[in-house]
């Protein structure tokens, strides 16, 4: 197997990145190229445009699927732990933890709703919103009888729970099923 060695004439003369670090390195070790620092690998923060864009770009991603990829919409309402949060174009950069609840995507007169099981929403200064969740289902794929049954089961488990872990699991069950219930009836 022939390993193609990169000729030193191929490589760029300067490695992009921290200039102070590079200068200090060159003073000390002029013959070796300075190593790259983490900031050289990071893409720069997206710039805040001077005028507010007219549309919000939304990415809704799950571990196994990209439900919405760079979709231009007017508004999204995300189920943050602090309550339903509306995101419009020009929203301040925010990171929000999500609780199980409904994500609604508003585009003109159409509203598409997904039930999210939890995750995070990142809003960037350039009106791009990244929503990451573990599960997102359209509301018509949820079975109401299973939701009612689950809610009753977990409420009973919560009453009969003894250890902290059991109580926590039962409480999570009650929270998720109540959110599912509210999503189906609301």
């Amino acid at each position, binding site marked *: 197997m022939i390993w193609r060695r990169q000729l030193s004439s191929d490589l760029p003369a300067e490695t992009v990145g921290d200039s102070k670090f590079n200068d200090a390195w060159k003073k000390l070790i002029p013959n070796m190229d300075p190593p790259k620092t983490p900031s050289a690998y990071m893409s720069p923060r997206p710039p805040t445009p001077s005028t507010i864009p007219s549309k919000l770009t939304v990415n809704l991603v799950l571990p196994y699927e990209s439900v919405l990829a760079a979709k231009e919409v007017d508004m999204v309402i995300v189920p943050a732990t602090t309550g339903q949060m509306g995101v419009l174009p020009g929203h301040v950069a925010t990171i929000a933890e999500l609780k199980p609840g409904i994500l609604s995507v508003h585009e003109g007169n159409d509203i598409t709703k997904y039930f999210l099981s939890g995750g995070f929403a990142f809003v960037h200064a350039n009106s791009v919103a990244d929503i990451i969740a573990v599960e997102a*289902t359209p509301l018509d794929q949820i079975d109401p009888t299973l939701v009612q049954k689950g809610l009753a089961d977990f409420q009973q488990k919560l009453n009969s729970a003894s250890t902290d872990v059991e*109580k926590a699991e039962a409480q999570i*069950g009650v929270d998720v099923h109540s959110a599912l219930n509210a999503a189906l009836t609301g």
Partner: protein
Amino acid sequence: MASNAAVPFWRAAGMTYITYTNLCANLVRQCLKEPYKSEALNREKVHYSVSRWVDGKPEKQTLRSDIPE
């Protein structure tokens, strides 16, 4: 900055965020309608094979998740 800020109830009970989120996702999957439910549960199946090693040799018993099914 309060370092003893109110922790969520699941963290107070010793659960990590990943365990919590995966539990929530699993509960949602259990509540789906039929074709979607089995697709979702199948997607999340994990197959593994576990063997214990003693003195540099594997013990005879190997646990495999796909055999019983």
